[in-house]
């Protein structure tokens, strides 16, 4: 599967295939959807089991659940302020869903659903609708002053307001492309170097020796990908909370 013939096939890992037999095929239920359900199930299980015992001295699972909770809680209140508590459930689900999606993708044979722009853009679109709705709900018509910095020369406003609007509209795009591109790039690199290992490994004694180099790179890459998995989930969540701060406080 790694290297068909001599060509490196790095992109077929992102192909969607229906699962669950006939039923899955007829409703378009792919392995991507299955992994989303697994991610949601794992997050739910972690929080349910982690908080079930409510021990004063937390066990491993409870410590993990509490660490995740407090990490996002601190992000929400630190970035947005006191109002951040209202958005904590949203931020927490978003962060954990993306994090578990990224981490699930690191397992062998698993699928990374965050490597599809359709998924990341849907998440970013939800964020975009939320920040716009929150801004409008809190500030009403005054929210539109967000696009016009105060004390601005009216002549310049003709230029600045469209730029600000374009900048605002580019948020969901940059948010989704960042996550998607990072995951795709990482998994393509893993696949390419893994293919090198296989191709060199089948090319005689000298090849086997040569295969050690890409193998070493791949080991390092796996570690790096775990870092990226956490980092991108964090970046997505913290940018969302920065946008929410802007929506709540306008400036």
């Amino acid at each position, binding site marked *: 599967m790694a290297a068909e013939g001599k060509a490196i096939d790095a992109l077929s890992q992102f192909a969607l295939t229906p699962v669950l037999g006939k039923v899955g095929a007829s409703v378009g239920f792919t392995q991507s959807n299955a992994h989303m359900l697994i991610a949601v199930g794992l997050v739910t299980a972690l929080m349910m089991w982690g908080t079930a015992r409510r021990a004063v001295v937390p066990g491993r699972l409870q410590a993990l659940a509490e660490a995740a909770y407090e990490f996002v809680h601190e992000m929400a209140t630190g970035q947005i302020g006191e109002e951040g508590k209202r958005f904590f459930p949203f931020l927490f689900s978003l962060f954990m869903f993306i994090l578990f999606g990224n981490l699930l993708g690191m397992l062998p044979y698993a699928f990374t659903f965050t490597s599809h722009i359709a998924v990341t853009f849907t998440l970013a679109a939800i964020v975009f609708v939320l920040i716009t709705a929150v801004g409008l709900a809190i500030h009403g018509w005054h929210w539109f002053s967000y696009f016009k910095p105060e004390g601005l020369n009216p002549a310049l406003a003709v230029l600045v307001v469209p730029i600000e609007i374009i900048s605002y509209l580019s948020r969901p795009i940059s948010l989704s492309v*960042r996550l998607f591109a990072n995951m795709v790039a990482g998994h393509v690199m893993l696949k390419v170097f893994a293919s090198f290992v296989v191709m060199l490994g089948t090319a005689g004694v000298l090849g086997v020796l040569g295969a050690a180099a890409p193998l070493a790179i791949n080991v390092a890459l796996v570690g790096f990908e775990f870092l990226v998995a956490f980092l991108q989930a964090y970046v997505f969540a913290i940018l969302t909370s920065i946008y929410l701060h802007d929506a709540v406080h306008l400036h």
Partner: protein
Amino acid sequence: MADRDDFDRRLQEARARQGLEAAPKGRGGGLPGGAWGIGFRVGVELVSALAVGLAIGWALDRWLGTGPWLLMLFVVLGVAAGVLNVYRVFMPRSGPR
């Protein structure tokens, strides 16, 4: 309760010494640095703003039938918005203005 507060305070201090406590954040900070991360972010911000400018210009031209002019205008505005985005990456708009 007194020694509990005291314990919390000492724990806080110890954590800060060990660098475990998040640095007191200026708003909008807290985004991870690193040359690759920043470079990638700048690229994404520039391109996404340009894409939005392109899309708006193209759609308006198609709707109003104004030839390539609005497309050209909005590409320029898109680039400007991209630069604004990049500026905000490094200078988050924060605090009272």
